[in-house]
């Protein structure tokens, strides 16, 4: 009886402490890689809305580890075949209309990816957030943790601060907030439509909200998600980018 009571009261306490000291970094990595895992293949619908237009895109993507990622537009027709390949720190775009591959130069990494509110930098650097930032538990309640990430000294980062709001059970992100160097909130990403797919519980919809332009947003909806698919490094090639098998 005594032991049972002890367990009831102290185990969660113990768990929290361990988390704070050891596992925050691990937690963030899990969250940041929720859509890629070791390897993945997905189909995504992306809706981008700005004050001037609204667009709807369908895409297909593949990833392998942290460093390899390929996405190709399936619709609309005008942009069918436009594709992006990321290998380590390099990003290339393929433009079928002119049949050219373009490398994104470092100076343009902050530019919008496919006209959305996601930047090329997001593609390259998001996978390294757990390595480039130091984390601290800001608050905790029954359902969630709030974790703050501050850049390590000299780390090549774009954000001055990132605040994660994570649901405990099952472990899924709810809201991630991005602050610039002056600690001003710049962007929010909301995660919704939590489902279990291929044995994992993840939010299938991701909404990017630029704070300065309240009427604008990018919504990514995962229509299909397969993990641990059979992909080789060689798949992520410029040849594959062009859609020639």
């Amino acid at each position, binding site marked *: 009886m005594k032991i049972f009571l002890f367990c009831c009261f102290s185990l969660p306490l113990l768990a929290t402490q361990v988390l704070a000291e050891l596992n925050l970094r691990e937690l963030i990595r899990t969250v940041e890689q929720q859509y890629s895992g070791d390897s993945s293949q997905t189909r995504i619908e992306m809706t981008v809305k700005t004050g001037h237009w609204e667009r709807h895109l369908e895409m297909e993507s593949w990833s392998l580890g942290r460093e390899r990622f390929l996405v190709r537009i399936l619709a609309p027709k*005008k942009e069918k075949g*436009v594709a992006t390949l990321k290998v380590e720190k390099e990003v290339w775009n393929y433009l079928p*209309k002119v049949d*050219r591959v*373009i490398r*994104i*130069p470092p*100076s*343009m990494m902050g530019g919008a990816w496919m*006209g959305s509110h996601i930047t090329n930098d997001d593609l390259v650097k998001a996978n390294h957030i757990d390595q480039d930032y130091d984390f601290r538990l800001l608050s905790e309640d029954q359902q969630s943790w709030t974790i703050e990430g501050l850049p390590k000294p000299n780390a090549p980062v774009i954000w001055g601060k990132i605040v994660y709001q994570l649901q405990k059970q099952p472990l899924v992100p709810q809201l991630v907030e991005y602050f610039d160097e002056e600690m001003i909130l710049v962007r929010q990403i909301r995660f919704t439509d939590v489902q279990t797919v291929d044995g994992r519980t993840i939010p299938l919809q991701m909404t990017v909200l630029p704070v300065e332009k309240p009427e604008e947003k990018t919504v990514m909806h995962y229509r299909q998600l397969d993990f641990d698919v059979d992909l080789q490094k060689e798949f992520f090639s410029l040849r594959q980018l062009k859609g020639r098998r």
Partner: protein
Amino acid sequence: MLWQLALRNIWRNRRRTLLTLSAMVISSALLILALGIFSGMLKDMLASATEQYFGHLVISAGDYQDDRDMFANFSSSQALEEQLQREPQIRGYSKRLRSFGLLSQQRNSGPAELLGVLPDQERQVTNLHQHLVAGSYLQPGDSAGAVIGSGLARRLGAEVGDSLVFVTQAADGSIGNDLLAVRGIFSTGVHRHDNSLVLVPLGWLQQLLVLPERLHEIAVKIEDPLRAASFAARLQPQLEGQLQALDWGQMLPEMREVVASYDVSRMIIVTILYIATGLGILNTFFMSVMERTREFGVLMAIGMRPGQVRRMVLLETLSMGAISLFAGVILGVLLSLYMAYVGIDLSGTLSPITYAGGTILPRLHAVLEPANILYPALSLLLVCLLAGFLPANRAARMQPVVAIREE
């Protein structure tokens, strides 16, 4: 006869007079030249900002010039263009559409600013066609040509005839991308233009951006760039709707301050130089008066009044001023003309300096402006008057008895 006496007195000590005269001639000539070169730099700066890119004034919608928002576009009306053609002050205007995006050639790519233009119009407003280092300018009717800056060409490894890909986001959100053929490469010496600017056909860019018939600005070149502000103010009430006429001073406020401060710094330079010259002249004038103390004594003894003595000495200094003014202006204008038409190229030792939105080119190149001659000329006369007045007064106050006794 006072005149004669004064003139002959000037020639009395030829060597000293020649030295004094040459000091005055050279200082005023060099000053005219220096101000001319100063004006040349200023004009280069203004030209680099306006005649290579902005135009003297720009008509655009709302606050397009503040943030270059792609959607702040407009379509030109027949009435507006007819009005621009009617204005006698306007030397030319150019309809433009602008886009920022990624320009790429094979494995190289970089950010670029594309200016969609009608070649015939653009060459009336900007002078990039005079800065071509390879190939040719855009031809009217060219559907997908590009004239690119030399720095950009070097970074991309592009040469005339190569094809480039431009990617940007179109106005409908789609990924606008298309091929361009390099027709020409320009080099202005202005880093900002050489490293990012590309001229492309207006129609090509309108199609790429899905902005048919739309414009971002109409750049205007006028007769006298220094009157751009008043001209823009006059044009403004005649513009319809959202359209705004901005002069270069509004687009480049620092440049406007530089131009405004030029007048002040010109006065400061003139003053400093002439204080130095003036002290030299004063010294020689004093010497020539002191040497003639006895003569002044005699003149006064035989009945010359102090006022006449003063006038005579002033006549001497003023006629020296007039002579050196004449020679100095001629020499200064000749030097300035040489520097205006030949100039000195310093690009081997200096690189261009960009300041207040304009670029000072590494060359000595003068511009002849009336004020650059007038200021030194008037100041020289003023200096001669001041430098002459003290010794003249001194001579007039001499006591004849004392003066005659002087050996």
